[in-house]
């Protein structure tokens, strides 16, 4: 509807600038809306399709000792978050890893504090296999 922009520059340059900032403000509405749509579709696609791709298995060497040598554990990182220590209230960075093997460890997921990790490597010789029921 507004044809002011396609007209040749006039002396009324200042006049046509009136409310330009508000025009830009209205543009934010469209931007936010489109960002919401795109973000949601991407989010669903990403989380949905990631099922089809195997995740890298990391090997964590812990600072704690087990049987005289540093404890090692392998798993897929599923979450990284901050938690508050119940005792001191300090923020603690922690990761959640999927270890599987519930029959061996009792739990399929495990939380590790970042501070308890001595080193993290991505060895190439781990495989993740899914066992069927009673398999």
């Amino acid at each position: 509807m507004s044809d002011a922009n396609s007209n040749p520059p006039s002396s009324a340059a200042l006049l046509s600038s009136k409310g330009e900032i508000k025009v830009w403000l209205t543009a934010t509405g469209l931007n936010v809306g489109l960002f919401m749509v795109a973000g949601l579709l991407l989010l669903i696609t990403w989380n949905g399709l990631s099922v089809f791709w195997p995740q890298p298995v990391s090997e964590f060497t812990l600072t704690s000792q087990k049987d005289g040598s540093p404890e090692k554990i392998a798993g897929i990182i599923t979450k990284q978050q901050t938690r508050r220590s119940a005792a001191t209230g300090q923020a603690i960075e922690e990761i959640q890893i999927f270890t599987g093997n519930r029959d061996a460890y009792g739990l399929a997921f495990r939380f590790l504090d970042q501070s308890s990790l001595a080193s993290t490597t991505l060895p190439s010789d781990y495989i993740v296999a899914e066992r069927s029921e009673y398999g």
Partner: protein
Amino acid sequence: MQSAESPEPLRDPAAPPRSPSPVPERFMVSKGVLRFDRFMTYVILFGGIGIIAAVFGIFVFIGSVIWPLFQSPTLTPLRELPLATSGTTLVGLDERSELPYSYDGSADLHFHSESSNVSQPLGLEPGTQITFWRQDRLNDRILLGTQDGRVGFVDISFTAKQSSPKAPRSVTGSLKLAPWLALNNPAPVESLDYASQGERKLFGAIVNAPEGPKLLVVGQRQKKGLMGAGKLEATPPEDLTPLLAGARPIRVLLPGTADAIVVQTQTNELLYLFRAPSGWEVRQQLKPFADIATDITVMDFLYGDVSLVLGDSKGNVRILSLNVPPGSDRRLFAETQRLQPLDAPIRHFVASRRNKSFVVAGDTQCALCYATTGTVRSVLDLPYTVRSLCLDAKAEHLGIVDSDGTLHLNTVHDPHPEAGWRTFFGKIWYEGYSEPKWEWQSTGGTDDFEPKLSLVPLIIGSIKGTLYAMLFAVPIALLAAIYTSQFLSASVKRIVKPAMEIMASLPSVVLGFLAALWLAPIIETKVPSILLLILSIPLSAMIAGSIWIRVPLHQRNRLPRGAEFWLLAPLMAALGYLAWLSGPALESLLFVAKLPDGSQIADFRLWWPQFTGLPYDQRNCLVVGFMMGFAVIPVIFTIAEDALSNVPPALTSAAEALGASRWQVVRTVVLPIASAGIFSALMIGLGRAVGETMIVVMATGNTPVVDAAGRLLFGDPGLGGGLFPLADHWNIFSGMRTLSANIAVELPEAAQGSTHYRTLFLGAFALFLMTFVLNTAAELLRQRLREKFKIV
């Protein structure tokens, strides 16, 4: 519509232009068209009437479901039976009121069938004289106290026989006398009660000993083993008279927990004795009718043994309930309800074994009452004087014995005693609560649970959810609509508009799922980032706009129409990302909470409750508002965009020709003319937000809370306290339960025809009424807007 039957062209070039034709056949409409026209008229008429009928059909259905909630109970006389007993009579009914029984303290109990009276001996050894007898509250059991200080009970059981489904039933009663327990005080028993709590059983009695009345308890323990209930072992009687401090006890009551006694004294005082681990103690002493100085005439427990019903000599009925008052750590009695007084002194009482209904009677008046709401539901004025009352186990039959010894059986029909305006919209002091409250808690773990059916928390939840959804969605949708319709080039608009509308195609269960599992945990720890992000969006537009107006006009004009949109995107993204990252910095600057040990910690989740005194939930209105945005934004956007696009170009061109800038055109011409359409868009969006269910069910935690918001809406005198009285009322960081979510969650569990079921429909009706009122008001306003800015 072009008709096939008219072969001539519409305009005949050969005919003179203005010659009046006597038979203007070419102007006549073909029969086919007319037939189709008529047919369509009926189809449309049928469709229109059908829609109206369907809507009214819904009303009629909802109305028919909720109507019984507001009906008064009916008491209809069933039959009359002369009793064989005289004097102080106790009556009881079997399951179907086929074989009433009566007892008057003699050695026999009488069963009265329609045709015959059968007396059956209790099995007392000769010489036993019964001095006190009363009906057990829960069972067909008569508690007995003797002249020589023994207590016991007789159980009554019924067996029904029916040889074939069509043959008449024959019901016979049988008695079983329990072993007597001695109180070790050979004096007549004046009052007695018995409580059995699994292993622990307890008798409480008052005996009129020569040295003065005594309050005694005697207990029994029953060991439960693998082989079922074991033998009963009696514990020695205890004398609790010293606890009374000289007061003369006249009545005892034992709650089913068998760990307490309520004693009424001659001075109209109640003593609440409790068995603490160290022994019996007086927990509470109170005078229920101290303000009017009347005598307590009736005292008994209601179903559940948490509330006491007290009647006095002036016809007043008051209900005391156990609760933990603020600042205390033990349950004490407090007056929760006062009923409308009867004309006569209260003499008789019987409680339902199903709910909190009870019947009180005095002289010739009899009243059916409900304790939770404190209402007298029905009053019967009888042509005879009441001597005794009884209710059957299902509270379907009320038996009234008159002074001539005739039992009048009445059918009680009161399917929804707990319903009423007070229940749904008023504050009620429920059992176990320390103050009157609006509460929705429709089901409980036990049978004696009191349903709490206040719609207020749900109405507030609906308003709150809608409010936050609209707060988020309206600015985005309207700004986007203005920009898309007025400043965006047509080719981009063709892509952008359907893209925004994709939002509406997402099923709300997906949105709810994402809100609950993905968004809520993110938002929980990132509130400062979100606050900054919200600020960064208009800020980026202002920065971009300020730079833009400094660019010379001829350079600006080189950019195509709608360039702002993609020029702004990277700036918004960059600023937004920066805002997101600087959230923790803002948190450590502003939102520092103090820990109990004195240290300070920057955490919004801890800071919010400390600063405002309001709770912080993970599933809060912020999450719901954002996710509801996905449902509401496309609706408002599409309709508003259409309204804005339909403003005649002649008007905008005229404004531009007069020298208005493009924003001035929008503000002064486009917005007023499109205002009616924009208003419709907002109303339809609002309707969507009010009725939205799935997102709310999944993302709000579904707790029916009334926080300060409710107090503001429903007028609480204690309003306006706290540090931030206004912020206090619409806590964005708490959950809620909306009317629609409530129906979705509870309707599958509600028994059809129950009060709960009907109340859910009442919630639906309330929801409908809310939207109806709102939409009607909006429509009136829209009409006015349309009149005001009429173009043609």
